[in-house]
């Protein structure tokens, strides 16, 4: 099934690329899509120009510019020109997106027609959101979306949020170092080990430590091992889970990763998680100065600016490194997240010495239509237009937009070689890595999508950052988190949490 689809996608992409040469009337009017021209589809420029929303008002809460904020505003302007709708866009920093929409939701206000946010807001928000109508779910444009992103945007099989962006955590590394025979020899000589793309977090740590604190690219500045999100904020937990899936997600123990679905006891202080946090605490030794206070932006600046050997969160750092004006363009590589040599089996209560690797289908950008919106059609049309092939193709080529691949047709190396001047090898590696995560793996972990998700994530951030700061040992820190989680579960109600958590577990256990 996958293969056939994949072939179809290749064919479609080939025609996309061919279309790029011909300008059409839409690309004359909207230079944003000059590479492809309009691409036929349900929500193409052409299709939108048939609609008339003049005199109607659309209000959108989106992220700060430029990440997501700029494409939102740009497509709003285009949408307005095409349909006559009056679109106003408000830009909110990432950390406040949840509350900015949640405050009005909770008090029965409906200032926004469309709210941008992260996919894991889904459980808290869904009661205020309008499910995506079948018309859109079944359209061709949607069928190009990878299963992982359909899953992330759906609740119990019903699509609530509209896929507009792809997000995942994967490993980024400095190809010019890892593939450098001189360094390989040096590494071998000094550690007795191979310098290669790290397969496990232990290898990652060893290499990062080795390449920490000296000028290995001869630019006159010191370089460091790894840049990661360690700042105690809303993104921190994602970095921790990326590091812990390898140790704690055992494909042979279904029934919950964060909690035991039956008892709803938190598993967060299990040996797998503790091992990952121990690794992470060790990582504070090979991050740049102040790395323990890096937010996503700092991570992107750091790796994208050529300061570190590794980084492992969202696409942004990779895209930043591959920008035209980047000093390290075509010097970076993408690979799946490292795994581990052993994995904890919570049923038997023992480590299994078996290589384990699990993609963490991390949450990412998404957008949805408010139930109280007065014009659902227009709102969905906007989102559909936002993600139409022509816009999407153009958006993913602009690093600062923060729009990343999530369509099967995105995972074609030629796109990146032709449009963005990537080295073909890097492009292939990138496309393959992403495609494998999206479509291939059966050992996936989905983000926690349960009521009060912020309370759970906030507890994780508080606990792990105490460990990183050395206030607590990893075990103590996670025990504290587990205790906090229990309290939250108790407050919210075990059954309520279980019901929501089961939806995610079903995806993880491939029960569909």
């Amino acid at each position: 099934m996958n293969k056939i689809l994949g072939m179809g996608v290749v064919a479609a992409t080939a025609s996309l690329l061919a279309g790029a040469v011909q300008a059409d009337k839409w690309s004359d009017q909207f230079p944003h899509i000059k590479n492809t021209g309009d691409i036929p589809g349900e929500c193409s420029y052409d299709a939108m120009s048939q609609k008339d929303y003049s005199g109607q008002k659309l209000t959108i809460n989106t992220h700060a510019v430029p990440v997501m904020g700029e494409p939102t505003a740009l497509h709003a302007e285009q949408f307005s020109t095409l349909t006559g709708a009056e679109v106003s866009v408000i830009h909110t920093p990432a950390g406040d997106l949840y509350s900015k929409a949640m405050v009005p939701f909770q008090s029965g206000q409906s200032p926004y027609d469309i709210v941008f946010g992260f996919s894991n807001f889904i459980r808290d928000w869904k009661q205020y959101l309008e499910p995506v109508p079948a018309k859109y779910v079944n359209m061709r444009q949607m069928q190009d979306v990878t299963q992982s992103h359909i899953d992330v945007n759906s609740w119990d099989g019903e699509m609530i949020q509209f896929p507009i962006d792809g997000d995942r955590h994967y490993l980024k590394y400095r190809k010019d170092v890892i593939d450098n025979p001189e360094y390989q020899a040096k590494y071998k000589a000094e550690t007795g080990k191979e310098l290669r793309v790290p397969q496990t977090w232990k290898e990652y740590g060893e290499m990062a430590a080795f390449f920490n604190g000296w000028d290995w690219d001869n630019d006159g500045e010191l370089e460091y091992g790894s840049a990661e999100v360690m700042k105690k904020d809303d993104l921190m937990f994602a970095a921790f889970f990326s590091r812990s899936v390898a140790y704690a997600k055992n494909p042979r123990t279904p029934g919950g990763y964060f909690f035991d679905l039956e008892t709803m006891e938190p598993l967060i202080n299990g040996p797998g998680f503790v091992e990952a946090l121990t690794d992470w605490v060790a990582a504070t030794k090979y991050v740049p100065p102040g790395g323990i206070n890096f937010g996503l932006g700092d991570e992107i600046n750091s790796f994208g600016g050529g300061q570190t050997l590794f980084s492992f969160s969202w696409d942004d750092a990779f895209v930043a490194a591959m920008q035209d004006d980047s000093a390290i363009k075509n010097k970076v590589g993408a690979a799946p997240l490292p795994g581990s040599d052993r994995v904890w089996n919570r049923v038997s209560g023992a480590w299994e010495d078996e290589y384990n690797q699990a993609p963490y289908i991390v949450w990412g950008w998404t957008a949805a239509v408010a139930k109280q919106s007065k014009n659902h059609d227009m709102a969905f049309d906007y989102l559909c237009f936002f993600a139409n092939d022509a816009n999407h193709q153009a958006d993913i080529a602009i690093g600062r937009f923060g729009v990343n691949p999530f369509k099967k047709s995105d995972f074609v190396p030629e796109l990146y070689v032709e449009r963005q001047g990537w080295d073909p090898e890097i492009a292939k590696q990138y496309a393959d890595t992403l495609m494998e995560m999206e479509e291939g793996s059966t050992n996936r972990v989905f983000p926690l999508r349960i009521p009060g998700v912020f309370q759970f994530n906030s507890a994780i951030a508080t606990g792990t950052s105490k460990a990183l700061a050395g206030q607590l040992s990893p075990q103590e820190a996670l025990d504290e988190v587990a205790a906090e989680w229990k309290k939250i579960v108790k407050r919210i109600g075990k059954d309520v949490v279980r019901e929501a958590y089961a939806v995610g577990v079903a995806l993880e256990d491939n029960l569909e």
Partner: protein
Amino acid sequence: MRFVYVTLKYLAVCLWSVFVIAPFLWALSTSFKDFNSVTGGATYIPWLQFEPSLEGWRVLLRSPAQGGVNIVEPYFNSIFVTCSASLISIALGTLAAYALSRFTFKAGFIKNSDITFFFISQRIMPPIVLSIPFFIMLGKLGLLDSLFGLILVYIVLLMPIAVWIMVDFFNKVPKEIDETALIDGCNPYQAFYKVVLPNSIPGLIVAGLFCMIFGWTDFFFAFILTFTEVQLLPVAIVALNSSITPWWSLSAAALVCVAPLIVVAFIVERYLSKGNLSGALK
């Protein structure tokens, strides 16, 4: 001895000046950088250490669809809201302060000083405490995302300041002046606006300046209580604080945001030098 003293004084003043200016100079320098010059480590002098770029400043002129922020309208909104709220707060606050300074109030254990403290104590509340109730209240009144709603909220923020300064000020104005006015045939209101007010202009100016400063620098309420119709400057600027922090445009924006208040600083200083402020703040 005297030489040492003078030298130390100049040294201290200059050191502090450096500390005050440093972040602004850094912001000025950063505002001419781009991604690459930021991530290359700390640099200071354009051309010499990095290739200057106008990107940071251009962002302020572009529309969001081009990756910029709209600051012109928020600028005027900010000025309007700050000025209106300051004026109303001062008008009401001055009346109340006059009453508290001149008349005795007694209701059970509540005395003048308690009422004054009640006014000032409104500033004890962290904005977060009030933001949600305010949201719900303004929602019910249909005043969310409106200039008027913001002004209402800012009155709560600013009136305590006006009362605090004006009570102190009126306490310094001899009450014999009001009495003379009464004797000269003014009723209490006439005495207030014909005699007391004209002689309280320094106090009013100080109160006004403080109100403007505190109104202008508020972020939290403006952030929670507005959506698209009304944006205030800090909120508009924070909209630049994307997940990749654009140091350059934020620096430029910060400088733009500070600029009008530097004029205010000059006014404050002018009044200070003329000695007018002194009476107002003693």
